């Protein structure tokens, strides 16, 4: 060994300090070396006290033995000098060891028992480490419990929000259903597949118009929840056919016939303000009503244009685009146009400025609607139930025509059904005639002051007939001059004038005829008024004629004349009044008063002076008085001797 190379072997203690852990960077953390007490405690910890108790037991048991052996020890002490020689040497060694241990045990027990020298405390070496970990554990457990609590809360919140959303969804669903119920109350609905279709046609009311007129009910529930719900939000929406959208109306107007034929059939559209929806009605209601109105207007127009083509009239009706033109009277045209404005902005702007809505006859538009509804009703009543199984289909009166033996005339009157167009033309004629009559009377009343003309229109009219009472009076003498009272019955084509005395005069639709007639009546009135006045004043009517055959020929009617004599017969007043020539008043003086009459050789006698003298004309326009009758009264008064 000494001959070999010297190898240095370094020896170091394996570790003075125990390594607790090696960090990821290689640094080592050491466990702090134990202090004395700690070391003791550790060592003490290693003692298995359970085992010790066994040993103690053994010790207890061996105690008497000890005592026994105590003596033996003393005896054996004598032979300790020859241990190896002693045959009981091993036994002695054992005993000795046992004794030592027994003594130690005894000491320890006394120490423990007396507590005078040492106080035993429960081992508290591990107490620090568990405390720290307990903190950690506490933290962890607290965190865990908090976490689980949070979990529960979150879950609950989630469930709540879900249920709220569901509620809203349900509510909207319920709104939809209630809206559907309301819709169902007003409109016919049916289910087709997964769609709900409605019917806005008038078919169930008797319409024969072939348009489908269906609309679709849409559920409008999937709106964005985050956005604000608009004010007029409705979970139910309707979709109407595109050709029924917007608003429509029929424009009926009567105009002077335009010489320019170029503007025929142009779309006279002006935007009519949409009727305000009644508060409380859902917007689908107004939408559907508008659509239904469009449909009805379409039907009316289709019916009218069909009739316009079919009906043979002297002047054919013209149907151009959306306009039907007819000539009720020569030089006059009735146009019925179908105006349909969609929500398209362009079409409204272009045509709105030209129109003047005044010439729109609302009455006729209304009547058109009424007529089509009557027509509907008629078709509906044809198939009224119950119906005898053996009888032919048709109107009930038609059914009874056989058994009740209706003759040809009756059947004809039943079958005769005037078309919509004919009726509306007749109504238009009447309306036109009525308004023109009113205008004629009014213009005469404002133009002519002396005999006053009053018109009393009856407030109740038929669609084809209305009447007006015309009174011709003089101001201030209404009570005595009531001779002219005319009843004008305005019909479709003519005006029938019923005189107070029962005479009936039929005037045509020409305006001039009525005017001339009224003028001649006014002129007659003056003469009649003089007659009445003469009665009141005590004068005598010598002659009276409504139609004088003498004098200048009047262009309108005839002149009328009257001659009245004063109460004592001295004076005679003769009045001639013509509608055109006006009035001419002449006074006849007694022969004695007139100076111009030359003395005749033949009439020498005084009695001849009582003969009537010549007539002299009164300068009527220089007379005082506000009107003819007043002037006449003054004249009569002047000629009447007191």
């Amino acid at each position, binding site marked *: 060994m000494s001959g070999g190379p010297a190898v240095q072997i370094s020896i170091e203690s394996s570790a003075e300090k125990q390594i607790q852990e090696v960090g990821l960077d290689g640094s080592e953390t050491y466990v702090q070396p134990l202090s004395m007490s700690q070391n003791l405690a550790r060592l003490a910890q290693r003692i298995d006290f359970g085992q010790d108790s066994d040993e103690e037991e053994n010790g207890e048991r061996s105690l008497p033995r000890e005592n026994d052996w105590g003596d033996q020890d003393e005896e054996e002490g004598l032979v300790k000098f020859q241990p190896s020689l002693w045959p009981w040497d091993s036994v002695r060694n054992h005993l000795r060891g046992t004794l030592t241990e027994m003594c130690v045990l005894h000491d320890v027990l006394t120490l423990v028992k007396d507590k005078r020298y040492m106080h035993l405390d429960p081992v508290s070496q591990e107490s620090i480490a568990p405390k720290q970990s307990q903190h950690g554990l506490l933290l962890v457990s607290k965190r865990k419990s908090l976490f689980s609590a949070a979990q529960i809360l979150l879950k609950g919140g989630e469930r709540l929000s879900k249920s709220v959303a569901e509620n809203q969804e349900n509510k909207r669903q319920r709104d939809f259903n209630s809206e559907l119920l309301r819709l169902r109350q007003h409109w016919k609905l049916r289910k087709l597949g997964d769609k709900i279709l409605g019917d806005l046609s008038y078919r169930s009311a008797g319409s024969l118009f072939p348009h489908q007129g269906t609309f679709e009910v849409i559920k409008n529930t999937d709106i964005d929840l985050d956005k604000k719900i608009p004010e007029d939000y409705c979970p139910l929406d309707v979709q109407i056919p595109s050709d029924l959208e917007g608003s429509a109306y029929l424009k009926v107007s009567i105009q002077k016939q335009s010489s320019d034929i170029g503007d025929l059939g142009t779309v006279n559209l002006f935007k009519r303000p949409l009727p305000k929806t009644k508060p409380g009605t859902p917007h689908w209601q107004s939408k559907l009503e508008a659509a239904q109105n469009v449909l009805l207007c379409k039907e009316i127009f289709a019916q009218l244009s069909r009739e316009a083509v079919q009906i043979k009239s002297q002047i054919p009706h013209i149907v151009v685009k959306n306009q039907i033109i007819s000539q009720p009277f020569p030089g006059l045209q009735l146009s019925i146009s179908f105006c349909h404005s969609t929500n398209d902005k362009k079409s409204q702007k272009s045509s709105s400025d030209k129109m003047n809505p005044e010439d729109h006859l609302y009455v006729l538009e209304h009547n058109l609607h009424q007529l089509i509804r009557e027509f509907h009703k008629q078709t509906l009543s044809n198939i009224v139930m119950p119906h005898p199984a053996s009888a032919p289909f048709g109107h009930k009166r038609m059914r009874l025509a056989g058994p009740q*033996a209706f003759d040809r005339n009756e059947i004809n009157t039943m079958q005769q059904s005037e078309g919509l167009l004919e009726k509306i033309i007749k109504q238009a004629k009447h309306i036109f005639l009525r308004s023109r009559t009113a205008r004629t009377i009014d213009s005469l009343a404002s133009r002519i002051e002396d005999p006053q003309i009053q018109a009393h229109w009856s407030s109740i009219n038929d669609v084809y007939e209305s009447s007006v009472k015309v009174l011709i009076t003089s101001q201030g003498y209404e009570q005595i001059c009531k001779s002219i009272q005319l009843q004008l019955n305005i019909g479709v084509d003519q005006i029938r004038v019923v005189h107070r005395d029962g005479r009936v005069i039929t005037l045509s639709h020409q305006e001039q005829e009525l005017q001339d007639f009224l003028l001649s009546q006014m002129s007659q009135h003056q003469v009649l008024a003089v007659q009445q006045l003469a009665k009141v004043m005590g004068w005598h009517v010598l002659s009276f004629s409504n139609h004088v055959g003498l004098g200048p020929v009047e262009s309108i009617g005839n002149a009328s004349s009257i001659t009245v004599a004063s109460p004592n017969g001295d004076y005679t007043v003769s009045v001639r009044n013509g509608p055109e020539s006006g009035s001419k008043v002449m006074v006849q003086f007694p022969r004695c008063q007139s100076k111009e009459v030359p003395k005749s050789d033949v009439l020498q006698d005084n009695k001849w002076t009582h003969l009537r003298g010549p007539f002299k004309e009164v300068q009527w326009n220089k007379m005082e008085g506000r009107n003819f009758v007043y002037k006449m009264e003054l004249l009569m008064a002047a000629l009447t001797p007191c």
Partner: protein
Amino acid sequence: MGVTCVTQVPLAEGKSIQQTVEILTRKLEQLGAEKQGTFYVDCETYHTAGTNVGSTGQSGKLLYIMHCSEYPLSTFALFENGPCLVADQNLDVMMIKLKGFFQNAKANKMETRGTRYQYCDFLVKIGTVTMGQSGRGISVEVDYCPCAVPGDCWNLMVEFMQSFMGSHAPTVPPVFSSKHDALYTPADTMVQYMELLNKIRKHQQGTVTGMRL
């Protein structure tokens, strides 16, 4: 619908039916009556057949089914001296179904056809009565439209009829006397026609040989 009188006009001396009708119409037109299309009245005869006829011993009653252009939707079913039924045209179809009870005597079908004239309130129908193919006589119907009570207008009607028929104007028809003050009905007209046609038929059967046109 007014009061109607149906009568027969005998042939003028030495004239055919056609000529007599022409004479009548000319007279009417001279009065100022306006021609208003044509008219017809037809009458079919049905024999009542079946079990009850023989047993009761009655010689089968005759049922007459009549149509008139004046009442185009009606069918009249009459028994001689019996009730008159007014029905719609479905009755014709029903008669076919009732073949077992009523048998159509086709040979006895009679008809009168002619022209309809209007003279103010009067309707005058002058027709030729035919049975089969041969003409048998002339019927004249005068209808006064504005009145419905026979007694009120009979004198007026007689006066009018005398104006174009002269001495052939009829005496009061039996229908009139029975309902003097009651309302006149279309069925009464048909009864008169039935009686007229029956009279002509019986007359023909009596004389055996028919008139030639």
